[in-house]
């Protein structure tokens, strides 16, 4: 396997696993759509991710793992 392909598989597996295990972390680290984090949750606290956002991140994580697996076997 070429180094770039191996890197893609490794990073893809890592990011996919992170999305599935800690969608809250992925959401907070996303620059887009996070300009006002204070609007969620209670005052003084980091707001919990909405259920929909959590499942969107998890779905992207699953997609990421699937593409990583495809790149690995292709």
């Amino acid at each position, binding site marked *: 396997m070429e180094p770039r392909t191996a890197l893609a598989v490794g990073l893809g597996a890592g990011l996919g696993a992170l999305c599935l295990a800690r969608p809250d972390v992925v959401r907070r680290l996303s620059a887009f759509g996070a300009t006002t984090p204070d609007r969620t949750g209670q*005052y003084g606290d980091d707001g919990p991710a909405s259920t929909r956002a959590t499942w969107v991140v998890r779905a992207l994580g699953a997609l990421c793992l699937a593409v990583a697996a495809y790149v690995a076997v292709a």
Partner: protein
Amino acid sequence: MRHPGLKLRMAVVGAILFAFYAVVAAVAYAMGVPLVLVLLGSVALVGVQYKIGKWSALRSVGAEEMPEDGRWGDVHRRVEALADDMGIEKPRLMVADMGVPNAFAVGRKGAATVVVSNELARTLNDDELEGVLAHELAHVKNRDVVTMVIGQGIASIVGIAAQWLVLLSGDNDIADFFLSMLVGTAVQFVVMLFVLAISRYREYVADADAKRYIGSGEPLARALEKIQRGNEAPSASGSATRQRGRRGRGQRSRGGQSSGVNEQVGALCIFDDDDRSLVTKLVATHPPVEKRIARLRE
């Protein structure tokens, strides 16, 4: 100079952020992209993020104009007095049903909006609410919203640049497309860690400014404690308990309304910051509530 330690830390993190951006601008310039175009593109991206962020924040909570009568009339007057003390224009005030006690500021100095949840107004007494509002006005005064948008803009720009660098240096097969997206995302995540660190520092600065302009950190400290506990008895809500000019510290309204904070929210209120994992601490936008309360009472 106020908050020298915090400002030094913010300066260091800000310099790192600028360095990320400078590297991207230098690479783009080396690849033949005019520097003016790089700057204009950056400003446009940040501008779009700012506009969309403000619009979506207000829309997502269903914010409505804050009435001028009853209890809210007193809130208007207190905010006007605080804004006057801070030397900023009175922000637009809005209310929303957020399901939890919350308040946040959006927009820039001169065109800011502060949203207060009905649950927060029911939970806090007059002085505590003023402490929270002073904290939000300090965010406006310190241009924290704009700073965060710029930080997030830099994260986006650096991520996009990393993505294109990988894409242009590859063979354009599916592995390269995938790798470029992953590298762009990973780089953006790393830059966002610095942006979130700045966010935590700025919370402390806003607390210190609120303490300064209110004359005491106690009201905000009590508000944070009360929200953390979640089931604290609320204040009287009638405007009769509030009078213009009665901004004396330590005068608290009392009452027996139910807080409106349901069990689910109550459960959310109970957390121990010491138990937060390193990852959770690194991606937190706010410092631990206990530390904030301790600093407010110093």
